[in-house]
Every structure is written in structure tokens, then in C-alpha cells.
């Protein structure tokens, strides 16, 4: 397993050079093993590393993920194929991006809720807002708190 230091990286790398980069390597923050004698001076400072779950998820038992289809939220940088993180424990507020149930389908839109007006607004001029008249019920499934994307061309 190669460490990150052993890979020569520079901005001028040609594609050929990139191909020589080992397929996988791992980051180990301050977890060296010394072969003899002295304990690592860093041992007391070891940390667990970064966990994306901690960053994205506040309430695990109320958090769900959806796959996005279509580009109605492109203006909010949410694209086809993205995974969105949805927290059901939050009360939806004006300007939140939400997953709502409309005609028994899930839809992701920005919630407009101001001065008695309730709308689900797309972030793409090619789409129409959905307006909810007084008395109509809007079912919000959960509030979108994050989006995750992995570029498919890198496997």
C-alpha cells in the first residue's frame, strides 16, 4: 500500500504519468507504527479521520437518502443522479429545499411559504411552480439538508 507522499503529483502530469499512480492508497492520519524503542510523539494526537456521515447526518434515525432524477433543481446545483440527504425531523420552513409528495410521486423543489402563499418552486426556468391554494394540503416528506455526488468517470 503506497502512502500519499510517495506519489509524485504536480499539475503538469501527462495522462501517461497519471496511469502509473497506484490504483488505491489509503490515508492514515498519525497512525504510524515505529519498529523500535520510542513511542510515537504523535500517538496522543491521533484522530479518527474525517467521516462524511458526521458531516452530513445530524439525526441518523430520521435521515434518508434519495436519488435525483431530472434537472428541475439545476439552479440549486442539484443534478440528475445526485444523492440528496433528507432529514424528516426538521419542520419545513420558507426557502428550504424539500422532498414533497405530489400526486403520489416524490418531487424535490424549493418551498416558498410566505404571507399565506405556499408554492413548490423549481430552480430551472423551463419548469413551472406548483401553487397550493388555500385549503389544499401539501405533504412535505422531509427537508433536504445536503447533496452528494461522485463523478462516475472515476469509477
Amino acid at each position, binding site marked *: 500500500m503506497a502512502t500519499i507522499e510517495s506519489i509524485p503529483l504536480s499539475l503538469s502530469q501527462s495522462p501517461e504519468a497519471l496511469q502509473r499512480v497506484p490504483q488505491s492508497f489509503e490515508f492514515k492520519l498519525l497512525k504510524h507504527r515505529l519498529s523500535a524503542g520510542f513511542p510515537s510523539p504523535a500517538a496522543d494526537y491521533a484522530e479518527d479521520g474525517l467521516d462524511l456521515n458526521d458531516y452530513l447526518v445530524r*439525526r*441518523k*434515525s*430520521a435521515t*434518508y*437518502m*434519495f*436519488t*435525483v*432524477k*431530472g434537472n*428541475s433543481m439545476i439552479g440549486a446545483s442539484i443534478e440528475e443522479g445526485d*444523492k*440528496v440527504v433528507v432529514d*424528516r*425531523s426538521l419542520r419545513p420552513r420558507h426557502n428550504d429545499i424539500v*422532498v414533497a*409528495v405530489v400526486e*403520489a*410521486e*416524490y*418531487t*424535490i423543489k424549493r418551498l416558498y411559504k410566505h404571507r399565506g402563499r405556499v408554492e413548490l418552486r423549481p430552480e430551472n426556468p423551463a419548469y413551472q411552480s406548483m401553487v397550493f391554494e388555500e385549503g389544499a394540503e401539501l*405533504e412535505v*416528506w422531509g427537508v433536504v439538508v445536503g447533496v452528494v455526488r461522485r463523478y462516475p468517470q472515476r469509477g
Partner: protein
Amino acid sequence: MAPQFALVDVNNFYVSCERVFQPKLQKVPMVVLSNNDGCAVARSNEVKALGVKMGTPWFKMKELARKHGILAFSSNYTLYGDMSNRVVSILTDFSPDIEVYSIDESFLRVESVAHLYGGLASMGQQIRERIRQWTGLPVCVGFGPSKTLAKLANHMAKKNPEFGGVCDLHAMSRLERRQWMSRIEVGEVWGVGQRINARLATMGIQTVLDLRNASPKVIRAQFGVVMERTCEELRGVSCLELEEIAPPKQQIMSSRSFGKPVECIEELQEAVATYVGRAAEKLRQQGSVSGAVYVFVQTNPFKENERQYNAGLTIPLLNPDDDTRVLIQAALRGLKIIYRTGFRYKKAGIMLTLLSDKATQQVALFNELGGGPRSARLMAAMDAVNREFGRNTLRAAVSGISNTWVMRAGSRSPCYTTRWEELPVVI
């Protein structure tokens, strides 16, 4: 402080899980079928209203299904398990004293925390509200001075909409409680099965109130100490504690129905070896060793025109062991003895019995394959690989590769909450 218990139970749990992720299914009559798409193990209210009983085989209700548009789903235990964990985790926030009684039911001790929520009734409503909001699942809550009464209260909350999903027996007068008990059949009491129910009937005990008022001494003489306790619990005397840490299982069972009938012994061997592999992993997880392996085979009782054969056999081990190879060997020896040609087998299974604690195991005098540090290392490595790369990555070769006998799950819904490629889609 006198103990106060809550029983929280998800309504039509499997059906409700399916509905959370498919808004289209609200109000649609539907059932979830058992392993291998056999019998209805969960029914929506619409299906209950049509008079379909729990456990009805699907083929017996196909006509009704066509008429009323009943949808059938294969069980999706991955989804149900994940949703169940969410519910338990929410309940643990309400009270740390919790016993997870089954996949959809938990008992809580609440007397020391109820005041934080403004009393039991209000706590019950908050539990309902939070579980509904965080998971989309509907629950009912019953409160009582004993586990048996909490369970009865839960039943009352479920069957009587006027309770709004929460029933607190503490809040009722003696008279009210007795009136309710006189209206509920004794068979609804926790621990009263069909057989006991029939015997109680011959003694003139038909309602919950009858059992409550029966003499505990008479009950004990007739049914033993467990029913006596039930009787005391109905009087509001708490006899059953929360079992917070599940005691290590005394036996581990692994069995399934086959997707299609199996006739040859080779396929049965593959199935049995696979089941032993699964059970042995659980055995090692709980740190036990097994003293004997029971193996059984069954034909399909619903195929009345086919010849029937059911057999099982226990094979004791020379030394209690947890080595998959040793356990498989024993199971296959048993299978060879009970196997008969000319039958179409529907189901096979194994049970690891005579379990004991591995740590206190006596040193074996004779060892063939199992026991010893080499075996322990191999099994630990196997379990680690299977945890990392998925079940059955490493297994005994005799478990087979193609597994044509594996169970049918024709219309399983996606694992919405646990698999990247099966997440629900939002447009």
C-alpha cells in the same frame, strides 16, 4: 416508585414500512407474504376488513385478491430491520430502560421519566408524533402497571379509535378498567395461547376480567407458575422485569422453504450446509459452542395429492464446538440418515442446540477438526471476510455455488434505506 410500563407497537409494521416509501400504496389493500411468498404475515386494514386472517396462504386468497385488487409483496427484511432500528433508537431517547420485544414491539419503563413529558398521556402522544414524523410509521402506545397490562392497554388503543392511539390504564378508575376487561376475550392476554384459551373456557374463564378475578392458586395448580404470574400481572402486580439484554439464545435455528421443490440429496446438502454456516456465525457472535445439531426435512403439506414425509434427527457432537466444518459434518450425517428418495421436499432446516458458553468450555480430550486455536483463527477470519464483503463470500464448498433452491422473493420492494442502487427516486 411503583413501576409503570409502556408497550409501543407499530401498526401493521411490514405494510406500513412499504407505504412510507411508496405513497401510491396509501389506502390500497395489500399484504406482505412470508419467506418464499407463502402466507400473509402482514395485512393492511383494508385487507383485515375483508376478513383475511393472519397466516392465510396466498394461493387461497388469489380469488379475493383479484376481486378487490389486493397487492402482495414479498418480505423485505432488510428494509423492516432498518426501520425497526430507527424506531428503537427514537424510543431510547424517551427512556433508556427498554426491552426490544420483537421487530415491531418494545417495552419501556417510564415511571421515572414520565414527568419530563408532562405525564403518561402526553408522553404517549409525543412518542407517536415523533415516530410518525421521523420514520413515517404509525404506532400505538399502551401504559400499565405491569408488562401484561401495558400490552393489554396497547391492544385497547389499537382496536378503539377513541383512544387516539394512546391508552393509559393508570388514568382509569377501577370500574372503568373492569368494564374494559369484561369486554375483551381472554385470548388477547399476553401469554394465553390457543391451547390455554380452550382449557380456560372449560373452566368458565372467557374474558380478561374472568382471568383477573380467578384465584391465582387454582390457576397455578392448573397451568403452572407462568400463568399464575399472568394472573397477578392483570391485578396490577408487576412480576415480569424488562429483559434489557437479550440472554444468549439457548438454540439457534436456521431454516427456509425452497423456491421450488427439491428431490435430490445433493441440493438438500447444499441447503443444509448453507443454513449451518449462517447459524454457526451467529453462534460464534454470541460466544457459544453447540453440543448437538438437529436437522430436518419436510414436504409441502399444502400439496395434498403428493406423498408426505417429515423427519428430523439430532446428532450429538463429541465435543461442543463452534467450527462451521464440524457442525456441517454433523448436520450432513443426520441428513443422510433421514433422507428418503421419491419425495418432493419443500423445506429443510437445522438447529444448533445444547449451547454453552465457549469461555467455560472444558478442554477436549479428543479433537478431530474443530476446537483449538487453529480452528478459532480460521473461523474468525471467515467471519471477518463475510462481514466485510457480504454474507456467504467465504463458505464451505459443500454449500454449493448455484443454489437453485434459494427462496423466491418475487415482488420484494427495493431496500430503500440501505442500498445505494435502490434508493427511492425523487424528480
